[in-house]
C-alpha cells in the first residue's frame, strides 16, 4: 500500500484536494454571501439576478462547468488566470480554472444555505433593528447575517463536505488529484486497482469525517438561543 501511495504520489494528490477545497470554500462563501444578500434585498432587480444565478448554476452539471472553464473561458474567451512565463503555467492554469468553476457552482448552494439560516430568524429581529434606526445594510450586517450564518452552519457544513468530494471533477481538466491518479492506476497498475480504490475512498473519509464532527459541535455551540 505504501508503495502504491508513493508510486502515484497520492499524498500530493490529497494535498491538491485540500487546496482545491480550501480555496473554493473561501470564494464560494464570498460569492454565495453576495448572492444571498441580493436575494434578501428589497430591490426586485437584484432579487431576480440572485434567483437566476442560483437556478442556473445549481442546475448545471458540475463537470460541464469545470470543462467549460477550460474549453470556453480559457480556450474561446481567452481568460487566462496564470502567467505563461511561469514554469508551472499549465498546472497553475488548470488549478485556478478548477477553483473558479468549483466556486461559482458551490456559491449557489452557499447562498441557499444562508437563506435557510436567515429564514430561521423571527421577523421581529429585523423590525427591532429597523426601529432603532439601523439602515437595511446595517441590519443585515449586525443582526440578520450573524444570526443567519449561525443558523446555516449545518447546511454550510454539508456544502463543504459535498465540495470536498466534488473537487474530483477537477481531474477532468488535468488537475492532479486522487481521481486523476486513480485513472493512472487503472492504466498502469490494473493489478492493484481495488487497493487503489480503497485507499482513495479511505482518504476522502479521513478528510470529510472530521468536518462533519466539527460542524455538529459548532452548530450546537454557536446556535442562537431564543
Amino acid at each position, binding site marked *: 500500500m505504501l508503495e502504491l501511495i508513493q508510486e502515484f504520489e497520492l499524498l500530493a494528490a490529497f494535498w491538491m484536494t485540500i487546496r482545491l477545497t480550501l480555496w473554493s470554500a473561501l470564494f464560494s462563501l464570498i460569492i454565495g454571501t453576495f448572492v444571498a444578500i441580493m436575494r434578501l434585498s428589497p430591490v426586485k432587480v437584484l432579487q431576480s439576478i440572485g434567483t437566476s444565478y442560483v437556478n442556473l448554476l445549481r442546475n448545471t452539471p458540475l463537470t460541464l462547468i469545470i470543462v467549460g472553464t477550460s474549453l470556453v473561458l480559457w480556450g474561446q474567451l481567452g481568460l487566462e488566470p496564470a502567467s505563461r512565463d511561469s514554469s508551472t503555467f499549465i498546472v497553475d492554469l488548470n488549478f485556478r480554472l478548477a477553483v473558479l468553476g468549483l466556486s461559482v457552482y458551490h456559491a449557489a448552494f452557499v447562498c441557499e444555505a444562508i437563506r435557510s439560516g436567515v429564514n430561521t430568524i423571527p421577523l*421581529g429581529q429585523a423590525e427591532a433593528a429597523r426601529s*432603532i*434606526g439601523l439602515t437595511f445594510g446595517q441590519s443585515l450586517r449586525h443582526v440578520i447575517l450573524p444570526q443567519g450564518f*449561525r443558523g446555516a452552519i449545518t447546511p454550510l457544513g454539508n456544502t463543504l463536505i459535498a465540495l470536498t468530494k466534488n473537487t474530483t471533477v477537477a481531474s477532468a481538466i488535468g488537475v492532479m488529484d486522487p481521481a486523476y491518479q486513480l485513472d493512472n492506476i487503472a492504466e498502469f497498475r490494473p493489478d492493484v486497482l481495488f487497493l487503489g480504490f480503497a485507499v482513495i475512498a479511505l482518504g476522502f473519509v479521513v478528510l470529510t469525517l472530521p468536518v462533519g464532527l466539527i460542524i455538529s459541535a459548532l452548530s450546537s455551540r454557536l446556535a442562537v438561543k431564543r
Partner: protein
Amino acid sequence: MSEDANGFPEPSNEPLVVLQDVNKHFGDLHVLKDINLTVHHGEVVVVIGPSGSGKSTLCRTINRLETYESGTISVQGKALPEEGKALARLRADVGMVFQSFNLFSHKTILENVTMGPLKVRGVKPADAKKRAMELLDRVGVAHQAEKYPAQLSGGQQQRVAIARSLAMEPTVMLFDEPTSALDPEMINEVLDVMVQLAKSGMTMIVVTHEMGFARKAADRVVFMSDGAILEENTPEEFFTNPQTDRAQDFLSKILTH
C-alpha cells in the same frame, strides 16, 4: 414643566406626532380608516380596543414599519420620509417596544442597548457603555448586562427593550401591548418602568388593556374599533362614562374578567 396632583408633568400643547386622514388597507381589509390623531409633547396616550381593530398597525405605521396609502403622518413637524437613510434617522427618534420584546438574540444585554448609539448615532464605545449601564440600572437589570436575552425572564427582557429604545434618546416612544406576552407576576415590573418614564415627561403612545396604567399615567384614552377611532377622552371619563355602544360593550367584556 408644571405637574398635576400625582406628580406627572402636564403635557404641552405643542404637537409632536400628527396623523391626518390616514388610510391603510391589507388587500381588501380597510385596517386604518381616516385616522386623525395629534399627540403633544409630554403627552401619554393610551390606545385601547378589541383585538384586530388596528392598534398594532397604527403603531407600526407611525414609524413606517408599515406603509400607508393616503393621508399624512408627521413627527416634530416633519413628514415621514419614504425610505432609505432619512427614514432610518426618523426611526431612531421614535422608540418602539414590541409585545414580543425582540431583543437581538445573538447579542448580550449590554450590546443590545449600545448597538443603536454605536451604529446609528456614532457615540464613542466608552460613552455608549456608560450610558447603557445607567439605563439598565434605571430599569433594574444592570446586574444582567453580560447575559444573553434567552437567559432573562420576559419581564426583564421587556425592561431591557425599553432601555434599548431609551438609549437612542427618542422624542416619542410607542408601546405595542408591552405586557401582553408576560406572566402575570411580571406585568407590574414593566408597568412601573413605564409609569416612571411617563413621570419623567416622555411622550408615549401605549397600546394596552392595563386600565390601572391608563388611569394612573394616561392623559388621554383613544378607543379604536374596526380600524377607526371612535372615542377620545380622559381615562376617568372613558372608563366611567363611555359614549359609544362599542366602547361600552368592549369595557364590559374586559371588566368582567
